[in-house]
């Protein structure tokens, strides 16, 4: 027994992200790591990113999708546990090319017994292909043992579910998707309401919006030191719970926390901060409809 083996070691699990260029592999990986949209340049060859979760070190290999780099996929797949194949569902004209690449890697995936997760990215783009069109376009009915999910690494749609599925395929362990909010509202930095998303089984919209507005009004009247990127204030509400209000450069966000959610106030604060961070990086100067669209998509991860 070596000396090092007496220390608790982390389990390593390797996943390889492949798919055509511009499919969104790097953007998905960075969203999984950072919780927000990050605009990318193309990946030159490959890059390796690691995250530690519950004693498992997950290595994510982000493989360049350009023709010149596709041969590299096979080398990394040899030592992987899971392959994530990313499809740009807004580019059906590239489905034949993507399908051809998918069919090249499929025998290796099956031979090695690798887990396969297909992410149909760019769900936010109007007119993107439906799940049915993707399944037909890639002949997925003929493929055994795979999972497929629709996501958007731009708006955040479905990313928490995708991560939960990815983690489960990679480690064999289940990870519970947490609810961080009973309701979420976003306002302009001048306090004009843009959108409210809520658990409709638990709250009445009118009563809740009244609470949000009261909190926002108090918040906007407060003098805050400097232009801090994200500033949090808590307001207790006897009826509903605790309103966490935060301000970023372009937005004010409000999140309703209550004990039964099963998460701490601090966890919900992080979730709200991530939402605002995402809005700042993806649609800071966009119109209200675009911001609403992003919020609707993003809250699928926190509610």
């Amino acid at each position: 027994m070596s000396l090092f083996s007496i220390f608790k070691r982390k389990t390593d699990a390797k996943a390889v992200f492949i798919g055509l260029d511009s499919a969104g592999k790097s953007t998905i990986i960075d969203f999984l790591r950072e919780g927000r949209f990050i605009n990318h340049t193309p990946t030159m060859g490959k890059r390796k990113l690691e995250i530690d979760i519950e004693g498992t070190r997950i290595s994510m290999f982000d493989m360049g999708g350009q023709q010149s780099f596709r041969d590299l996929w096979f080398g990394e797949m040899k030592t992987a546990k899971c392959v994530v194949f990313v499809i740009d569902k807004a580019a059906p004209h590239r489905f034949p090319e993507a399908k051809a690449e998918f069919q090249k890697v499929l025998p290796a995936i099956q031979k090695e017994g690798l887990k396969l997760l297909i992410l149909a990215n760019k769900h936010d783009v109007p007119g993107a292909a439906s799940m049915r069109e993707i399944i037909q376009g890639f002949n997925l009915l003929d493929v055994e043992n795979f999972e497929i999910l629709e996501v958007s690494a731009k708006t955040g749609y479905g990313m928490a579910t995708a991560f939960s599925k990815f983690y489960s395929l990679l480690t064999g362990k289940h990870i519970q998707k947490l609810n961080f909010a009973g309701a979420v509202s976003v306002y302009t930095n001048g306090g004009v309401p843009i959108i409210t998303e809520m658990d409709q089984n638990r709250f009445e919209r009118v009563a809740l919006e009244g609470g949000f507005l009261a909190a926002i009004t108090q918040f906007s009247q407060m003098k805050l030191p400097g232009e801090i990127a994200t500033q949090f204030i808590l307001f207790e509400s006897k009826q509903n719970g605790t309103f966490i209000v935060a301000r970023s450069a372009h937005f004010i966000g409000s999140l309703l926390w209550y004990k039964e959610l099963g998460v701490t106030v601090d966890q919900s604060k992080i979730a709200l901060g991530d939402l605002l961070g995402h809005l700042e990086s993806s649609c800071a100067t966009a119109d209200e409809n675009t911001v609403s669209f992003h919020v609707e998509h993003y809250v699928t991860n926190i509610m």
Partner: protein
Amino acid sequence: MAYIDNVTITRLGGFEGSDPELVGAYPAVIGDKAELINKALPEGAVPGTFRSDKIAGMHILSYTFKVKAERESLRDDLASISIIVSDKKVHIDQMEALFKEIARSLDESGDLYQMRPTMFVQMMERIYNGVNKSEKIKIDDVVIDIPQIIKMNKLNIFKKDLKEFQGAF
């Protein structure tokens, strides 16, 4: 006497179906294009980083940066600007320091990010001449004062020829 042999720009486009390519070279392409691309834009290259390597016995100093996409819906390109030095009398670490100053000045000014194909040749030519003649490089509103950089950083680009010292002590 020239300090550098060549200035090149390589790119991996953000558009669909792109592949790494040699965008241009001034005065002319040196060596094998594929090898040049591999060294100038190596695996894992990310914007804002420098790299020093060798190609056919020559030094290649590269700086990787972003170039704004031509259409808003596309992602930015990944590109690199490189200088190639074959002269063994050149202090490569000193040249590297000078090249970093040039690349940083251009990147901070936004000139590299806004670069369009028509600017490539102009930019490469001005860097080539500016460094080799040790004179100011002027690209649009950006002026890179090479003599001042050399003076401020006390750079000695050329190794002294031992013959110069003969009888001088």
